[in-house]
């Protein structure tokens, strides 16, 4: 710093400069003050109208108007999913003075128990866009609403909003087919179109609700409201109406679906029924079911845990995700595959000594009838479910051709149009085995596949679809759940439909059909008891899927085994043969032989669909099932 020059003259000059500058500053200050006063007066007096409007802006709020979710009907217009008016409790955190206090007061007012309280706090933590309401509780009781109304002034930011809540009248029966809606979770919030979902708290989580979410949801509207300083709505200033979601008409038939559910009688398994000509899924049941309404309002932890830990896996959709060895139910498809491949003709005949042996191999691949069926042709091979015929056929075809032919029927593929989370099952092949186990394919494995065992796994939907394609004489129609979206009908031919299956001669189909008819109506048929009193021509095939593989020449007694190690009972059928109207696949887990424990269910389904008069009462069918254990069948 320079040394201080302490001259009196300078000091006085400095004071003079300062005083001049300070005076100037005061002039500027006064001028600016006048400017401020003038500006404020201008705003308040001259532009009073503008100013008051602008001031009002602070009290005008834009509120989302969530659209009504589309309803879901069955093919006959019976309501399957509706919207029930309920009251929800929401909180806009930014409008609350003290979120913790507000939450504590709400817990007190709503008289929540400990568990509900913890859920409540969990929800209050959920991430939400600023100034968007967080759903804290749904389906409030009248008493709770009254309590909240009385204490409204203590709860800024809290709203009780009337909202339509999804309700499934026949929840247990429809749970797997329809799916359900649930609260939008944090992950979903990030991926959703915020403006479309403004004010919406629910989204399709599974099934049809999920697959057709876009159509069912609709478009949110807006309304401008004037509120008081506390955020309470005083009046509406304008609105854009929401666009409601489209109603959905499904292909399901509610009465057939109900019958299927009742036929299963609480056992584990699945029934899928299709209309072959249209590919429409008439019934798709997975049992046990569950109350999907619980998931809409938010299931409590204990109930959820119970559902998850239940050994019967009620939350598991067996119809589309259950993997089962198909057993003998695939023999008709193998026969057709052999016809396409040229490995057999309808006249091919073998002699069955009760087992099959590969060349240069001592191992005997057994027929289920130890002493053999003697002379067996194509039709008889189906009727008596002969294994030796199919060991031979499979060996002739080889795994590569077998894999190709079965894939053409949709095995190992996802073929449905609008079934959410459908599994592809497993159609084994050389490549698959190399990739999975890094091993080459053994000829013996081809034989196992030839009787629907080994690695081959199907889903009930796949079995029903393949049956429908067979009933169509090889013409493919994609299975579908939706009949109409809004007013638009779904086309019959959808993109991605597999290629049709063609036989050298069209009457070869009749040979296979005839064999399948004999399963039910023939004197030797494995399911001949099921065919008693049949009023139409029906083709079918039983199957018994081993849950685990038994060693060679080992015999077992089903009763001695744990119930869960018992065979799965399978049956596939279509009717009437001359003009098929329904194709059914039935799988009952751990029930035993398919001809005894599944065939009756298929018959009950076709009866219900084809006959005008009353189908046999469910109780009767059950009785038959319980008493009839005489008819024993092998693989």
């Amino acid at each position: 710093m320079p040394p201080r020059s302490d001259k009196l003259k300078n000091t006085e000059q400095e004071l003079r400069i300062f005083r001049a500058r300070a005076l100037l500053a005061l002039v500027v200050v006064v001028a600016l003050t006048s400017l401020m006063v003038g500006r404020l007066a201008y705003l308040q007096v001259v532009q009073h109208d503008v100013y008051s409007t602008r001031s009002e802006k602070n009290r005008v709020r834009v509120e989302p108007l969530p659209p009504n979710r589309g309803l879901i009907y069955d093919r006959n217009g019976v309501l399957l999913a509706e919207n029930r008016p309920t009251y929800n409790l929401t909180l806009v955190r930014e409008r609350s003075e003290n979120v913790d206090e507000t939450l504590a007061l709400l817990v007190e007012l709503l008289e929540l128990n400990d568990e509900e309280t913890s859920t409540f706090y969990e929800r209050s933590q959920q991430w939400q866009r600023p100034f968007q309401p967080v759903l804290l509780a749904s389906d409030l009781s009248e008493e709770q609403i009254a309590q909240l109304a009385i204490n409204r002034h203590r709860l800024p930011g809290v709203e009780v909003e009337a909202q339509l809540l999804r309700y499934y009248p026949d929840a247990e029966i429809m749970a797997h087919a329809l799916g359900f809606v649930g609260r939008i979770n944090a992950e979903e919030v990030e991926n959703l179109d915020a403006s479309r979902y403004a004010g919406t708290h629910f989204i399709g989580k599974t099934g049809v609700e999920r697959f057709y979410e876009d159509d069912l949801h609709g478009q949110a509207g807006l309304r401008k409201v004037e509120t008081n300083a506390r955020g309470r709505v005083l009046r509406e200033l304008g609105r854009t109406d929401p666009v409601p979601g489209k109603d959905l008409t499904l292909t399901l038939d509610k009465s057939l679906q109900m019958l299927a559910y009742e036929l299963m009688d609480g056992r584990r398994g699945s029934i899928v029924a299709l209309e072959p000509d249209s590919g429409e899924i008439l019934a798709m049941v997975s049992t046990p079911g569950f109350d999907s309404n619980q998931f809409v309002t938010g299931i409590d932890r204990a109930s959820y845990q119970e559902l998850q830990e239940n050994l019967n896996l009620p939350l598991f959709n067996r119809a589309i995700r259950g993997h089962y060895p198909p057993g003998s139910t695939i023999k008709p498809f193998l026969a057709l595959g052999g016809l396409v491949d040229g490995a057999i003709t309808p006249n091919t005949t073998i002699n069955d000594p009760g087992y099959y042996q590969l060349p240069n191999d001592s191992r005997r691949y057994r027929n289920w009838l130890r002493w053999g069926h003697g002379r067996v042709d194509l039709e008889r091979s189906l009727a008596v479910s002969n294994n030796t015929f199919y060991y031979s056929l499979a060996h002739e075809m080889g795994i590569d051709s077998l894999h190709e032919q079965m894939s053409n029927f949709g095995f190992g593929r996802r073929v449905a149009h609008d079934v959410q989370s459908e599994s592809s099952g497993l159609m084994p092949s050389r490549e698959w085995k190399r990739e999975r186990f890094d091993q080459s394919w053994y000829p013996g494995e081809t034989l196992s596949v030839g009787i629907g065992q080994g690695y081959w796994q199907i889903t009930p939907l796949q079995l029903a679809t393949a049956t429908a394609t067979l009933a169509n004489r090889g013409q493919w129609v994609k299975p579908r759940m939706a009949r109409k979206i809004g007013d638009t009908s779904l086309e019959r031919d959808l993109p991605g439909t597999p290629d049709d299956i063609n036989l050298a001669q069209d009457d070869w189909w009749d040979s296979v059909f005839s064999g399948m008819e004999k399963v039910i109506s023939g004197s030797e048929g494995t399911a001949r008891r099921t065919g008693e009193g049949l009023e139409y021509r029906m083709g079918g095939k039983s199957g018994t899927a081993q849950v685990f593989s038994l060693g060679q020449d080992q015999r077992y007694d089903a009763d001695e085994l744990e119930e869960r190690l018992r065979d799965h009972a399978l049956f596939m059928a279509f009717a009437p043969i001359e003009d098929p109207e329904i194709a059914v696949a039935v799988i009952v887990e751990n029930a035993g032989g398919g001809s005894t424990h599944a065939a009756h269910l298929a018959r009950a389904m076709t009866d219900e669909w084809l006959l005008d008069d009353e189908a046999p009462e469910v109780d009767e069918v059950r009785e038959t099932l319980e008493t009839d254990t005489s008819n024993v069948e092998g693989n």
Partner: protein
Amino acid sequence: MPWQAITQSLRGRPVRTSGGIPKRRSIWERIHLDPWLLGLLLVLMGSGLLVIYSASGQSMNVVIAQAIRFGVALMAMLIVAQFSPIFFLRWAPVAYGIGVLMLVAVELVGDVGMGAQRWLVIPGVIRFQPSEMMKLAVPMMVAAYLYRCELPPKLKDIVVCALIIGLPVALIAAQPDLGTSLLVASAAIIVVLLAGLSWRLIGLVCVLLASGFPLLWMNLHNYQRQRILTFLNPDTDPLGSGWGEEVGLIGMVILILLYLLIVSRGLWLASESQNTFGRLVAGSIILTFFIYVFVNIGMVSGILPVVGVPLPLVSYGGTSSVTLLVGFGILMSIHAHRRLLPR
């Protein structure tokens, strides 16, 4: 004897007025406060509490919290006023140096709040915003420098002052806290202006600033540009309900006149100061105070773009009140000790 020392101090030693007649010091002189300024400030703070009471929806808790802040700020003012201006003169370079170091520290290890590094945190001890201190330290440093120069300042002195001002302002702007950096800059520039910066230089700087605006615009953050655009297009004004809504036009005019009185009294006290350092610092403090008022009211009424400047001693908040009243403490110290200073 300590007792004698204390009683003597309270009674006050006789001092000489300009007329040379010994006179007992008044109570105000003994506590080094200016009663007029203090009274005006108390009235202002009282009306501030009323506004807050109304704006917070009759919430006594909020008012009490603010009153406690005012109490702390007034204590700070009282304590600061007890130091002699010589103290400030001596310690200004030290405070300035520490401030710059802390700003550098903020840049390196500062706590990020609202997307900007403004806070210096010594865990468990203090959470401190160095830029707040610089609002007083920078103008005092400039004044201390100019006190040693012959006034009006020469070009060389101006360049030194520009460096003294530029370093902390750049650091604060880099946080980024453009609003505070501009306030610090204007507080310091006022010192230079009051010291007698030549009109030709003032004109030159104005031209430079105008031509530098496009460059500044390029370096602005998006939110800053948005504010300026908003200002130019008032239809999209994002202003929320302000204090003006609570007191009405009459109330606002009274409030503005109150500020005018405080500024006038402050300028008077500044020009009464017998020493250049005191004058420059006092003038800067009081004019900066006015800048706060003008920026806030100008912003609310749409004369100026929106920046986060609180309305002094009326808006809710603690840090700004303390800084302001510490400033007034310095102002009062300069006034009350004027006879103790060398000319």
